Structure formats: structure tokens, C-alpha cells
């Protein structure tokens, strides 16, 4: 029994290691695919019909963040920003003034009930036609997203939580992924790498009653796609994270050495499995240096 128990124990740990390697292979393949698609330009010229993406934003900080949202090369894209004019009157007024917004008729589609919406704003300037602002009393991010879906014009919606930013080439890459398959074949695209991404077909979100916990489960598996690339990141990444990672790695190494010296092999095996997963994650991080490379590449030269 003891022997069988140990075999099961080792098999379980080996399965974790195998899982880590499978994820690593997927991330490496995804990096190759991203490199291939990053060189394509056909989608930027005039995107094909139907693969538009509406980004739904809750908790936008101010004008600069909205400007960053609009700084997107993909043509079939809009940013639906939900702001509370009562809670944050200065930010709201600043956005209205900067982007020349006026209140327009608000008659929400019968898709999702939206409470607390005071008004809808669009820009008088053609260059800001991709911006839509919804003035809504804030209750929760989910309620903001549900209200934004009602005015979103494109077939796919990407909710962005407060403090989350899109990485370069995010929308373009997602649009390409959607365009690789027939229209309507994909209803959900997600990525566990970086900040979690959830791109949903508008109709699927409506059918599921909004962005609730049942959203993913309500979409058939055959219509879900999982990508292993980073698309989103935190607006203010912690500068201490690399230091914490190194510290954790040293601590782990010390614990492994100590448990091996003490002869506690089972504990040592668990720690070594953790170390394999951490090393695989670190290697995967080297495969996606896009942001670092982009930053390095766009060094100004005057």
C-alpha cells in the first residue's frame, strides 16, 4: 500500500510537470504564431465585415486613458466608456470637453436591461467617432459592462476592468484570430497569460444575461478558443514583482536543499515540482518579450 501510495504520489507530481510542459509548448507555439501574424498588414487597411470589436471600459481614470484607448490602428473598433458624472464630475467634464462630446438620444436596445443610465454621449468631431460615453450611476463593473453592451455596435465585446490596459497589437491580433474562422464560429476567446482576457460575442453575452458567472459555461466548448499570449496588463505593474520573484526563487532553492539534506524526500519532491513550474513560467516569459522589444524598438531618435 505504501509503495502504491508513493507511486500515485510521484505520478501526480509527474502529471503536474507534464502539464507545465504542455502549457510551455503552447506558449512557445503561440509566440511563433504571433510573430507570423504581427507582420501582416491586410487587416489594417480595411477590415472585413463583421469582425468589429467594442471595448467596454469601466472605471476610466481620465482623458489620458481615453486617449490611449482611441490610439488603436484597427479600423473596426470602438471604445464604450462608462463614467459616473455624479461620482466623478471633474473627470466626466474633462472627457466631455476634450473629445467634444454631446449628449445624443439614448434608446437602449432590448438586449440587456440597464439601470441608472443618465445619458449617452458621442463626439461631434469625426476623428473621435469611435468613442462612446455612457453616463451611468456606478454600482458594479458588471452592471457597467451590461449597460455598455446595449450601445456597443460591433459583434464582439471586450470588457476592461479598472486598472487594466490593452497591450500593443491586442485588438488587431484578436481581430485576426476571429477572421481565421467563418463568421459566427467563435463566440469566446480567452487567454490565461498576463491579465486574463475574455472576448465575447455580443449575442452570446446577451443570451447569457450579461457578464455574470455563467457566461463562459453558457457558450458551447466548440465555440470557445483559448490563446496563450498576453493581451492585457495591469496599468501600474508592480516594480517589486521581479524582486519578489527572485526572492521567492532563492527561498525555494534553500528549502529544497534543506529538505534534501534532512531526507524529507516527499516534501522535496513537492518543492521541486513547484520549482519546475516556476522555471517553465520564467522560460515562457522570455518567449513573450514583445512589450520589452516594442519599448526598445520605439526608442526615440531625434
Amino acid at each position, binding site marked *: 500500500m*505504501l*509503495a502504491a501510495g*508513493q*507511486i500515485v*504520489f*510521484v505520478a501526480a507530481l*509527474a502529471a503536474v*510537470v507534464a502539464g507545465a510542459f504542455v502549457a510551455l509548448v503552447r506558449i512557445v*507555439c503561440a509566440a*511563433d*504564431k504571433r*510573430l*507570423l501574424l504581427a*507582420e*501582416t*498588414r*491586410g*487587416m489594417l*487597411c*480595411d*477590415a*472585413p*465585415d*463583421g*469582425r*468589429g470589436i467594442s471595448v467596454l471600459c469601466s472605471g476610466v481614470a481620465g482623458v489620458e486613458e481615453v486617449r490611449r484607448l482611441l490610439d488603436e490602428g484597427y479600423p473596426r473598433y470602438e471604445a464604450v466608456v462608462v463614467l459616473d458624472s455624479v461620482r466623478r464630475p471633474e473627470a466626466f467634464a474633462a472627457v466631455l470637453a476634450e473629445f467634444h462630446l*454631446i*449628449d*445624443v*438620444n*439614448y*434608446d*437602449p*436596445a*432590448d438586449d440587456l436591461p440597464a439601470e441608472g443610465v443618465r445619458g449617452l454621449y*458621442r463626439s461631434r468631431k469625426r476623428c473621435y467617432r469611435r468613442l462612446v460615453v455612457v453616463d451611468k450611476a456606478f454600482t458594479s463593473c458588471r452592471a457597467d459592462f451590461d449597460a455598455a453592451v446595449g*450601445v456597443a*455596435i460591433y*459583434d464582439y465585446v471586450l470588457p476592461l476592468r479598472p486598472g487594466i490596459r490593452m497591450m500593443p497589437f491586442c485588438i488587431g491580433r484578436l481581430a485576426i484570430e476571429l*477572421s*481565421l*474562422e*467563418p*463568421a*459566427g464560429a467563435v463566440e469566446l476567446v480567452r487567454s490565461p497569460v498576463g491579465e486574463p482576457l475574455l472576448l465575447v460575442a455580443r*449575442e452570446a453575452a446577451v443570451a447569457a444575461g450579461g457578464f455574470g458567472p455563467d457566461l463562459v459555461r453558457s457558450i458551447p466548448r466548440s465555440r470557445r478558443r483559448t490563446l496563450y499570449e498576453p493581451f492585457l496588463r495591469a496599468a501600474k505593474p508592480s516594480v517589486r514583482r521581479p524582486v519578489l520573484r527572485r526572492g521567492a526563487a532563492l527561498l525555494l532553492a534553500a528549502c*529544497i536543499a534543506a529538505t534534501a539534506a534532512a531526507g524529507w*524526500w*516527499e516534501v522535496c*519532491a513537492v518543492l*521541486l515540482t513547484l*520549482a*519546475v513550474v516556476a*522555471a*517553465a513560467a*520564467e*522560460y515562457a516569459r*522570455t518567449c513573450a518579450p514583445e512589450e520589452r*522589444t516594442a519599448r*526598445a524598438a520605439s526608442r526615440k531618435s531625434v
Partner: protein
Amino acid sequence: MTRIVMLYCAFAACVVVLLSGAVVVRRLVDGRRHRRDALLSRQYLHIVILSLMSETDTVPHFPRLESAGARMVLAETLARLVSSTYGLDLGPLRRIFRDAGLQPFLLRCARRTRGCRRARYLSLLSRLPADAAVAAAVERYGSDRHRAVRFYALMVRLAADPSMALQLIGAYPDPLSAFELSEIVSMLRRGVLPVAYEPLIESPNRNLRSLGIAIVRQFGIEEAEENLLRIASEDTTGELGREALYALCALRRPMARREVVRRMGLMSRAERRALLRCMALEGYSETAFGSPVGDEETPYFESFVLSYKRCLVC
């Protein structure tokens, strides 16, 4: 039985050491290589553009071309230059391509790799001024397991022999996706493919028809309206009929036509609403559309149209 656990620990420790070593090596190599490649790319780009502007027949010298990765940098630089421009004098580019041995180099790289990496080498080849022999060399990738490899093998053959474009696209085994169509049209924009829309849109071949519709939409060819209406009425449930409707919408043609109404009636609710949203985005008014899809969808359409307006008088 502790031995099993000890053996596992030894194995896991080796894996950790190997992975950690790989991380360190990769970080060092990648960092230096990125810096070197950026400098080389800039140098090579300068040499190529000077060569193009100077209109001489001599092939320029590219420094450090024999070093590891330099040929790849030259291939990427040339490919990027070609895809961002049109009207370049292909003579100097062909000479550079031939003298640097880029064609056998890229074919060798494609042979040694799989999947998206192979597709990337083929993608580079498709943008470079390769000779007709490359078409024969990539023909075997036409039956590769990976869809991107099959597609970029087609692109290489299109670039090598544009006169065979219709036959090659017609014989392509997979239905062209929207992304693939946009790539072919971008080749058209560079002046590589001499195709007209009429034979495409009238063709019985699905891929050629799709390409014809994409060309009509992207170049705003309003004269193709009757062709699009015919496709919409003939292809009652498939992708082509749907594409034809979206093309009509992009051209801002009247949508209250019998063929359009009939085709919309055969769509699912989600598809119909998607098309209505597209029409609202393109600027169709609620009155110009009429109410061919019934009372259920009209308020939905109007809610979007009215959100682009503002009532001044209550």
C-alpha cells in the same frame, strides 16, 4: 520505495537546472541579438534604399552577412520594405536577393521547421522577388497539415507567377477565410496580382467569388451591385450570400431590395441583428430601410440609428 521519490527528485532537479540555464542563455542571447539585429536592419535598409535611388547595376555589399542571423535580418528588411511600398524597381532587389543567396536560405529554413515558423519563412518568401523556380520548391507545402503553411505556400506561388492567380486560388483546397482574403487583396494593392473583379465574382468557384466580393467591397466598386444581389439571392444559407449583403452595406447601396429582404429573412436572429448594426454604423436611416424584417427588428435597428442623432425639439 523512497527510491522512487528520490529518483523523481533527481529528475525534477535536472529539469529545473536545464530550464533555468535555458532562461539565462535565452535572456543573454536575445538581448544581444535584438540590439545587433536592430543595428544591422537599419544598416541594410539604408544600403538597399541607396541602391534603389542610385539606379546602378552593381550589387551593394552588406557587412557581416556571413554572421549568424544576418541573412535573416536582410530577408526581413527586404520583405518589410516591399510590403510597405509599391513601385520599387525590382531589378536591384532581385540582384540583392540572388547574390545574398536568400532564396535557398529561406527554403532551407522552411524545410527544417514546422508549423507557424515554416509559415513565416514562406510568408517572407512571398514578399521577396523570388524566381519561378521557388513555386516548384514550395508546391509540396500545399498539402501540409498546418493551414498557415498551406496558405503561405499559395502566396509564394501567386507572387512567383501572378498570371496563374485564378487557377491557383481556384484550386486552393480550403475555403479562404476573411484574413486570407485580406492578405491576397493586400498583394493586389502592391500591384503584384493583375486581377479584375468581374471574372472572379461570376466564377462558380467559391474562393474566387469570395475574392471578387472582397475586391468589390475594398475598392468601392458600385457597378457590381447587380452581381452582389444575384449572389445574395442564389446563396441562400451560405457564407457568400452573407458576404454579399455586407458588401452592399459597405457600398451604401439601397437595402430595401427584394433579394436583400429575402436573404435577411433566412438569417438567424443573431445574424440579422449583426447586419442591422452594421447598417446603422454605415449611416443608413431608419426610414430608408423601411421595415422589411418585421416589427420585431425595426425598434432594434432604430435604437442604434437614433443613438447617432440628437433631438433638438421635444
